[in-house]
């Protein structure tokens, strides 16, 4: 059943509503069911999660008798952003994932909405927040975990059928994310990053849905058949090499995203179309896996080109 989680009136004949759909067992609820919350659309230009929300429900409907717990689906935490192709909250120039846990007293509209979202998600037995990088970079399916939640969350991340678990160091600025707000108050949340902004990568979506069923089975929410999940690589920051553009220009990749690369092999070239020449050939500093690769060709000096996991 569809519920409204938070609501704000816009100036001219429109209400902004944050929706969730709650799926429950056919036989009804007895009160001690586990609850999983699937969340996406905090960044309006990240759409990979849209397909996941749909496909997850389609498969649940197909085997309704196997649903033993509550599945809450929140497909659009930033509906104005999704509908206007805006990453942040339109009208505020604000990254919605930097305002949690929100504020109902003295904040602006997005902070009021954020507080409603946190309240509604709190108490879930598990949450999955699906992101899709941005328009610049393509990511292999991965879960990102704050170092301080490593013990609690890595075992669950391994069920999600993703390729990679990145345990990153704690930065103060990340304390304003939805995942931090929930994890630090006792509601576990896994953050998935996969694919690229403004696009759907269906194979990645199917892969993650397979994983969500494995996670639901572990939690006792699903008792149907599930796959055996992929064994992801788990690493800390030290294993990740960041490759940034040494010059401004147009980036043309030579490697294929998600492939392995050898040290000194060509990642790609930065070219100068005006003079018809290569400005810079970028070589891999390590042997490893290209888990992040630039999709958007225009680069300034410093733009991220790739992230390579040393292996």
């Amino acid at each position, binding site marked *: 059943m569809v519920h409204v989680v938070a609501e704000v009136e816009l100036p001219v004949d429109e209400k*902004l509503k944050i929706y969730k759909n709650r799926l429950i067992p056919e036989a009804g609820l007895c009160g001690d069911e586990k609850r999983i919350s699937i969340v996406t659309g905090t960044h309006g230009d990240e759409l990979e999660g849209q397909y996941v929300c749909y496909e997850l429900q389609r498969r649940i409907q197909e085997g309704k008798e196997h649903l033993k717990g509550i599945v809450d689906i929140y497909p659009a935490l930033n509906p104005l952003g999704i509908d206007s192709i805006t*990453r942040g909250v339109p009208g505020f120039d604000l990254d919605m994932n930097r305002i949690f846990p929100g504020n109902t007293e003295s904040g602006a509209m997005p902070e009021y909405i954020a507080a409603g979202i946190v309240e509604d998600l709190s108490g879930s037995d598990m949450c999955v927040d699906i992101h899709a990088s941005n328009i610049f970079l393509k990511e292999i399916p991965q879960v990102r975990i704050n170092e301080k939640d490593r013990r609690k969350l890595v075992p669950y991340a391994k069920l999600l059928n993703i390729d990679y678990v990145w345990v990153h160091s704690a930065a103060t*600025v990340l304390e304003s994310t939805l995942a931090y707000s929930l994890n630090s108050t006792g509601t576990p949340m896994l953050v998935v990053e996969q694919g690229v902004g403004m696009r759907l990568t269906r194979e990645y979506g199917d892969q993650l849905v397979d994983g969500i069923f494995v996670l639901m089975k572990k939690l006792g929410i699903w008792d149907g058949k599930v796959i055996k999940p992929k064994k992801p690589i788990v690493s800390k920051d030290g294993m990740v090499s960041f490759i940034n553009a040494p010059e401004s220009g147009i980036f043309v990749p030579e490697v294929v995203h998600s492939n392995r690369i050898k040290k000194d092999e060509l990642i790609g070239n930065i070219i100068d179309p005006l003079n018809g020449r290569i400005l810079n050939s970028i070589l891999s500093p390590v042997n490893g896996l290209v888990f992040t690769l630039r999709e958007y060709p225009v680069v300034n000096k410093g733009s991220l080109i790739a992230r390579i996991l040393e292996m």
Partner: protein
Amino acid sequence: MRKKILYELSSIYRDNLRIKGYIFGKGEKSACVVGAIRGNEVQQLYACAQLVKALKEIEKAGKIKEGKSVMVVPCVNTYSININKRFYPIDNTDINRMFPGYNQGETTQRIAAGLFDTIQDYKIGIQFASFYMPGEFIPHVRMMRTGYEKKELAKEFGLPYVVIRDPKPYDTTTLNYNWQIWNGQSFSIYTSETDKLDIDNAMQAVRAVLNFLDKEGILEYQGHDGYISRVINENEMVPVKSKNAGIFEGFAQVNKSVQKGELMAYIIDPYEGNIKERVMAPCSGTVFFAHDTPMTYNNTVLFKIIEES
């Protein structure tokens, strides 16, 4: 006056982005003033330009103290200001959320690092800053409560208020915060406008900085003394929120007093013209902040009042 390029970045088809510093006096790095970091900070740019103009005269008159120097950086982000875009053109990131920066990182981290490396040794850091919420303010000095903040110094600007803010996680990447952690003394000056010019207000900010530099013994400036500042914590202000959305018609004015129960604004139905809500003052005091766009959502802070003590 000496001009110095503090940081330079090339792009594929645009002229280079150059961060320029204007240096007055010689010797100890006494104070540095930074202007527009976001592309809409035209008022901040203008205030810096007027400060450069005033400092030229002061230097010519030999009134910069021996062994002291002041640097002004009018604009950090020409790429945005020239195309009327608030954040960095390519990736839409905010340079004022990238400090202290990282010279091997993303473009805006490099710009932040390039700037911060050249200004961090100045003993006093002053930024002409803008707020993320649209609206009008009483001009004030703002400091973060980091444990290093010196409120008494902030009063030397002679602006009506010194506002102390408890930093939130996202504040820890601003210039103001990092400057204060680094050198102990950093202030942000907020004037009422951002993307429009308010010349009186900009000149008030310029005089405030010159007053401050005079009191700190960095230069000689004969201004009037300004206000005796009142120090207030941001959390102590009383927010006045909308209960309805619609067209906003404000009556209460910034820097004016209101009485408890006084009418501050109407919220009007955008189709039928009737008054949906009369926004009343919940307490008596001075209006510190006022919403200044013609529309409002519900649950939006329309005013902030400094309650009468």
